[in-house]
């Protein structure tokens, strides 16, 4: 039996595989290169390129087409931002917990490669950003909402979520608007929660008490 095992292992260990790295940039950069946020922001983009890009763990990945997402995508984004703002933002008056951003660029620093991302909606707790900062949001948000498009690849989305968690984002809602479900991730907890129409989004410890029925979101 052990002879069989060794032979098989030898056979399967032999083939040489050329790994392709996923980069589809028109600017002609080295696809193997890992970029810093500074290098990424200094890049000159081809005007004919119809994609927008993010930097995730040092790699440049397409975010979406320049023409923008669907109307539905935008509508869901707006609803989430509205409910968050009403509950934890300006709507909370003196009890305001923080600030809500739509399409706010975030520099996640480099907990695991550099990442410069633009979540659809995010929330940053009060007092975490310096007054009058310029440029991208300088801290990792406390809550990130990503509304996924049918064209998003699994690898890109999961790597992005990994980067958010590594940067200390406390709560992530990954929204699947076509199939009407949400996957919720919480920092320090490896359980992914699949939320369906009857379930509700939960602010967890980031926005205590916040609840939003998926029904209301996807109606």
């Amino acid at each position, binding site marked *: *039996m052990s002879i*069989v*095992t060794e032979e*098989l*292992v030898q056979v*399967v*260990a032999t*083939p040489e*595989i050329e*790994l*392709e*790295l*996923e980069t589809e940039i028109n600017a002609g950069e080295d696809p193997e290169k890992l970029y810093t946020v500074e290098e990424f922001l200094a890049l000159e983009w081809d005007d004919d390129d119809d994609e927008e890009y993010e930097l995730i763990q040092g790699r440049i990945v397409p975010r979406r087409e320049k023409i923008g997402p669907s109307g539905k995508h935008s509508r869901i984004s707006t609803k989430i931002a509205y409910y968050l703002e009403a509950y934890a933002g300006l709507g909370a008056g003196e009890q305001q917990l923080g600030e809500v951003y739509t399409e706010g660029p975030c520099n996640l620093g480099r907990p695991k490669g550099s990442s410069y991302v633009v979540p659809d909606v995010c929330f940053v707790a009060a007092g975490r950003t310096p007054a009058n900062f310029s440029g991208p949001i300088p801290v990792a948000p406390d809550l990130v909402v990503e509304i*996924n498009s*049918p*064209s*998003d*690849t*699994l*690898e*890109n*989305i*999961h*790597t992005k979520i*990994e980067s958010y968690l590594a940067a200390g984002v406390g709560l992530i809602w990954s929204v*699947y608007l*076509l*199939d009407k*479900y949400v*996957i919720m991730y919480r920092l320090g907890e*490896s*359980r*992914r*929660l*699949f939320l369906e129409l009857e379930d509700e989004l939960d602010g967890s410890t980031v926005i205590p008490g916040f609840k939003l029925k998926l029904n209301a979101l996807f109606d």
Partner: protein
Amino acid sequence: MIAQDFVVSQGEEEVMEEMASGLHGVIASRVNGYLFIYLLQNKLGHVLDSSTTYNFGDDLPRRESDVSFVSLEKMPIPLDSELAFAPDLAVEVVSKNDKVYELETKLAQYQKAGVSLIWVIYPNSQKVEVYRQKTGLIEQVVDLNGELDGENILPGFKLKVKALFD
């Protein structure tokens, strides 16, 4: 990989949807091979290839995994019967263009159907996501330096992630 069928368009022209790359096939075959070797010595069940279809029940679509494992006690006799249950282990090898919608939906169905252990292999970033079923899917990312563990499904089975990509 998400299975895509051949599509015949109305103009009678046969169009092939995106199919798996050689890399995908090599990795799936390796997992298959290592599991097979383990199961030769530990007669716990069967490793099944990507042509196997599971029927999870009326309200869930039929599913195929790139590689799967079913324990002896679950396996129907005769073998030539419908697999109306979830495998104990499901392995998905991600193709570069696999859409997040399709695989997340598949994972949700695996969760509902009760697959105990899931390995999602990423050939490009050379990592494996391990999902365990414990009141929901518990997720862990194992990188190139790590090892896959058969846990209580395949006791003693260890596979260095490096061995999949070397």
